[in-house]
């Protein structure tokens, strides 16, 4: 550990040393792992309160975290070049799974997200959060950067096809994250300002079209975000109650297990999407600032790994994974505090919930692998 600490302190520039002992032998990035573990522990503490002091909820979340960290360690061992080689296959398989969900899901009513594989039920859309940026990075790996316009069109297709499939489920939150993950990869590859401006105009034109294809409840969420007081007991209830929870927390919070909004069930989705508000109520602004600092540190470490990466694929993928993680944080904090409309995006590593924890940690496993499998380059 002392070695890791030293590494964290001094790691700058492109100086590489032979390190094949301890944790590093497992290709694990200790600062990253430590930050993730701290956030996960904080998450469990908050979850215990949010889930009405239910030990079983905490145990289930611990199990998911264990699976997630397992995936982290396993993926950390995979050299990134193998990952790169498998990328097109993985992408195609996940798109195929999304189509399967679509067909399979026809039978069950409502949202079609889950695929029952007999033993496990999982959401292929979660996997797409990794597969999409990988595919984009794979596509750009051998090409000259910044990408040309035709290349950008292909990239747009790579991201748009799965995003539309997911949005159709309908799962706007995940679709948004897939677009963010893919889009951020493209942005990191370096598009000119002109193309970005073009994209912005396109988005402005696209917004009404998006509005027209949105489901009623999605539109209601947007409208409610714009004016939550218009229907305080209906669709605006979640927003209002979560703002009351956050606001009444004040600077220091009401104290652990003492959040009235959460414990008296005024707060919706307390242990999942709105857990940020539980933390805000019980730990106050100071608690939230600590959490945000940890998140930003994780993003920072991820970006550092990206900068340190040796080839286009790993560089783009690492940067994209780090920034997507931040998108999670920002969208969740934004929607819970009333900055953004409510989209189903969990607070990473803290919200209780199935596959998102596993994919997130798997993504960080890839980051660790990128950092741990660097080749020694001759100066």
């Amino acid at each position, binding site marked *: 550990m002392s070695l890791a600490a030293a590494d964290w302190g001094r790691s700058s520039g492109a100086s590489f040393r032979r390190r094949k002992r301890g944790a590093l032998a497992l290709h694990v990035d200790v600062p990253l792992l430590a930050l993730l573990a701290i956030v996960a522990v904080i998450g469990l503490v908050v979850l215990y309160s949010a889930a009405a002091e239910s030990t079983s909820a905490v145990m289930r979340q611990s199990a998911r975290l264990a699976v997630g960290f397992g995936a982290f360690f396993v993926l950390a061992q995979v050299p990134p070049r193998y990952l790169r080689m498998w990328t097109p296959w993985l992408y195609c398989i996940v798109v195929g799974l999304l189509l399967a969900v679509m067909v399979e899901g026809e039978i069950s009513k409502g949202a079609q997200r889950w695929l029952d594989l007999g033993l496990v039920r999982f959401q292929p859309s979660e996997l797409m959060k990794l597969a999409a940026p990988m595919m984009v990075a794979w596509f750009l790996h*051998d090409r*000259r*950067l*910044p990408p040309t316009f035709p290349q950008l069109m292909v990239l747009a297709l790579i991201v748009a096809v799965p995003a539309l499939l997911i949005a159709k489920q309908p799962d706007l939150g995940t679709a948004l994250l897939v677009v963010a993950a893919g889009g*951020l990869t493209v*942005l*990191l*590859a*370096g598009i000119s300002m002109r193309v970005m401006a073009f994209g912005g105009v396109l988005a402005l034109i696209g917004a009404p079209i998006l509005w027209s294809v949105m489901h009623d409840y999605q539109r209601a969420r947007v409208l409610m975000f714009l004016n939550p007081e218009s229907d305080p007991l209906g669709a605006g209830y979640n927003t209002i*109650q979560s*703002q*009351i*929870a*956050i*606001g*009444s*927390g*004040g*600077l220091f919070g*009401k*104290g652990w*297990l*003492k*959040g*009235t*909004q959460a*414990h*008296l*069930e*005024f707060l919706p989705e307390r242990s999942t999407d709105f857990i940020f508000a539980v933390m*805000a*109520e019980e730990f*106050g*602004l100071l608690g*939230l*600032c600590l959490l*945000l600092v940890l*998140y*930003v540190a994780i*993003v*920072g470490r991820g*970006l550092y790994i*990206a*900068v340190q990466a040796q080839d*286009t694929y790993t*560089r*783009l993928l690492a*940067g994209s994974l780090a*920034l997507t993680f*931040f998108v999670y944080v*920002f969208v969740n*904090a*934004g929607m819970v*505090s*009333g*900055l953004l409309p409510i989209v189903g995006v969990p607070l990473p590593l803290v919200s209780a919930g199935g596959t998102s924890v596993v994919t997130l940690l798997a993504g960080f496993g890839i980051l660790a692998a990128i950092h741990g499998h660097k080749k020694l380059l001759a100066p």
Partner: protein
Amino acid sequence: MARSAVALKDHWKEQRLFLSRVIGAAVIVVILSGLVVTRLVQLQIIDYQRFSALSQDNRVRIEPLAPPRGLIFDRNGVVLADNVPTWELVAIGEEIPNLRETLQGLADLELIDPAELGVLADLVRSHRGFERVKLSNLTEEQAARFAVRRHHFPGVDIQEALIRYYPYGAATAHAIGYVGSISKADLERIDRRDYAATSQIGKSGVERAYESRLHGSVGYRQQVVNAQGRVLLDPATDDASAAGDGIFGGLETKWPVPGENLVLALDIRLQLAAQEALANARGAVVAIDPANGDVLALVSTPAFDSNGFARGLSRGELAALNTDPNRPLFNRALSGTYPPGSTVKPFLGLVALHQERVTPEQTVYCPGHFSLPGSSHRYRDWRPQGHGSVALHASIVRSCDVYFYQLALALGIDDLEAGMRRFGFGAPTGIDIGGENAGVVPSREWKRRNFSRREDQVWFPGETVISGIGQGYTLVTPLQLAHATAVLAAKGRRFAPRVVIGSEEGVSRRIEWIPAEELPGVDDVDEHHWELIAAAMLGVTAEPGGSAAVTMKGTPYTIAGKTGTAQVFTVAQDARYREDEIDERLRDHGLFVAFAPAEAPRIALGVVVENGGGGNRAAAPVARKVLDAYFSLMPDDYVARSR
């Protein structure tokens, strides 16, 4: 190889480009994080007070606490209206496995009305599952029956509640009134917030008139509720140690202020004696202390058990009361109006003396009938053979009608009306419990206003004649009779009748005595005239030939009284009134007014017995019993204290 060279050449450029993008991204990350923090500062620091209050409003429910209703005592401290615990059967919907079966089972045990099964099922379903819904009131016996079978009825419970209880029931029903469920009309006259926890309100009598004093003011306690409204902590019932800080902390309780207790002028012993004296008759007795207007007894029969209203009457029970031909709900003492008959004679005698239309010595010959000049219509005396030559004294003692026919003519309708009004007839007496009828003292003006046909609007001399013996249009209430007699007894001093004489504040237990309210009286009458009338009224009960002499024989105290008989049925000119031949409902009303002791009056009475026959036969015996009760029960020192 060329491709590789290109790639290598691009490597540094690409890395530089990538680095600049990452730096840009990092800046955006910091900016967006700052945005989130700014938003949090806004919510948690700037708007903290507002959100803190909103969260407190969410958490705490204010449960109003009903104030205990003030008790009502008689003048000797006997409880006339009490609050007693009763049992309520309640259902908690979510704990009942099968609502229909459960309710059927309760109906089989006769704990709820089988006819209301559907209504009660809907009632339970319309509440949230955890709320306690009252199904019925239980008697102690029913509560016991349920208690032994409680385990058969999960989700059904009995709970204690306070209910109004009138120990003397029917005897005090018309004086005290009763409480009942708050109606829409009641809501108009109360502050709803103050009644948030109260389910009953005064409906009549003292209970209604003194509602604001009896009710007290509402309190509240704060309870912790969750988003569904379920009470999670109630400091009043839960372990106090559960409270403290956090979710369950900082709860306030403000106890209700109990209503004021009232002390009545009534003496329950006299009240019961009057009730017993009236027995099964339709009638009323009002007894007033002439010195201050205290209503010592106020009875109207038949009455009803006021506890029924407090408990809640079934539709059938209420219908039975409403359709009873004897009208038990009708307060005859206050709102029953009757022709006063001969009871007006002492009053008219006094007015005529005062106005010097007659002298005590002046006599009239009574042949048993009277006719107006130029008319053949005979106004009959009650005694067909007449009273011979009579002066004022004898006319009152023997109740000579012919004398008073002429006296009325001598007064004229205008002075007759004015004189009657000075004693309080024809207007509400101003009794504190309200609900009284003004009665009628007719006049030319009154006739003009109350008749639509022009030929009916004229006042005829014959109408003056019969007004002299309290017949015709004149109508009085038993309360007015007692009130006016009290004025006679007090030689012109007049007090507003009052049932409530003091109130006891719930906390300090200090009794505040309400001073008597003196009204403009009959203060310009010569002392000698008062004495003449009192002597004549004494003669009614004490002289041979006095109209109530037989009934009042042998009392250890003196009584100044006057009988009255009010015709219900007009007998044809050539016929005789034969009681046994006419329907009971058409028989004469018997009336009696009295004060005693005649020389130093302490009590004035008005008695009416509907369709009881003549005043001496029907009403005087009732008055005798009441007066006997009064003088045997009342210790002298008590009478002195009350003044």
